[in-house]
């Protein structure tokens, strides 16, 4: 396992991400990761707030259109996330905060898919799902943001 991670890191792609300068490579991927996550989490939070009673006169049918943008944002975050992982595979694989983040990102995305099926295309009010969604994203953001500090602490 360790050798696979090291191979990933030292692959042509892994090296390119680190060594392609200040404009492309690592900083650009990091920016796109942030842009993607703030689109997914931000729009999802807005939807959650709507389901919890803020702006309750905005019809859900109108917001259904947002799912295209939500999934696009998630795809961008996932692809750039994989690239960021490749660049520092050994470091991230030994970081507990990284796994907490993955679990709660999974929870957030699953909740979003449930929200669409059961609330947008079903007849549930979705208050519980909305609260679960907010909680998942908060933990995912916290764990993701603390990754840098946790890896510093354990090394």
């Amino acid at each position, binding site marked *: 396992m360790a050798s696979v991670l090291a191979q990933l890191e030292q692959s042509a792609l892994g090296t390119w991400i680190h060594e392609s300068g*200040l404009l492309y490579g*690592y*900083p650009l991927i*990091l*920016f796109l990761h*942030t*842009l993607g*996550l*703030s*689109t997914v*989490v*931000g*729009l*999802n*939070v*807005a939807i959650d*707030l*709507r389901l919890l009673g*803020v*702006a*309750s*006169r*905005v*019809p859900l*049918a*109108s*917001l259904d*259109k*947002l799912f295209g943008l939500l999934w696009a944002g998630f795809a961008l975050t996932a692809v750039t996330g994989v690239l960021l992982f490749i660049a520092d595979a050994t470091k991230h694989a030994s970081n507990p905060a990284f796994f907490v983040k993955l679990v709660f990102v999974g929870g957030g995305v699953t909740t979003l898919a449930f929200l669409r099926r059961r609330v947008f295309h079903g007849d549930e009010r979705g208050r519980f799902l909305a609260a679960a969604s907010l909680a998942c*994203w*908060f933990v995912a*953001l*916290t764990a*993701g*943001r*603390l990754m840098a*500090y946790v890896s510093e602490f354990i090394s």
Partner: protein
Amino acid sequence: MNLAHVHLLLNHVPTIGFGFGIGLLVASLVRDSADLRRAGYVVFFVVALVAIPAYLSGNAADVVLRTGKELQHDVVIAHQNAAMLALIPMEIVGLASWLALWQSRRWQQPAVLVLSIVTFVLMARAATIGGQIRHPEIVAAGAAASAPSWPSPAAMGAALVLDHPWVWPICEVFHFVGLCLLFGVTLLVNLRLAGFVGGFPLAEVNRLLPWAVAGLAINVITGMLFFLAAPDQYTQNSAFTWKMGLVLLGGLSLLYPTMFDEEPGSTAGILHTAMTRRLIGVCSVAIWIGVIFFGRYLPYLGTE
């Protein structure tokens, strides 16, 4: 032009702007005019936004002046603390003014008026001490530049972050929470403004706007704590300058959906056309993406 120059350009705006805003609010009371009252709130909100770069650029001016070695640094420190003491109530007035523009309540006008007058006095004090930095001739003989009894929130903020290693990471977490609130809600509102989602009035989705402003407030507070703890990391960085310029524009762009959310009817002027709305919606989203871009590139760009 450097940031010290920016400070010279902006440093009179908070005091004079608040004086102007107070004048408008008093006039609105005398003449019982809703238009004057809203104008006063707009002035307070805009000045509260401009006061942020005015404060930040002051640190850069300090760096420039320090190399000259000709000024008393304790006067600069006293000015900085006085400025922060005025900036805090100024941001609260800005926030309250935004709320009043969003949804008018009876108690808001007297509350904003009283707090803005207190702020004006504190800002005038900061400005006076600031004037002493370059004009020692106006300092009364024997008068200490700073009365030791005044609280120093700038020093307290820096100490909070520097003395506790967990404060910076916690602030980072909340900076991202604020970012998601601000970006997500403004994205939805601007998509509606630009016509990419529809089927409901703008005024309905505007019920969400306070959550965006709460995100902005969280990020101003956590961002200011970063800045207080490590000012040189930011004042010497051009990506930070760009980010702050865009934050100012982004804050201003919040005013449009806040103030012009009635449906374009028969009396629709240039401000209400679908084209104007689409332009403002698209530009606002682009501005916030720019803020994220320069924020993320901050460690990589702009540090020579």
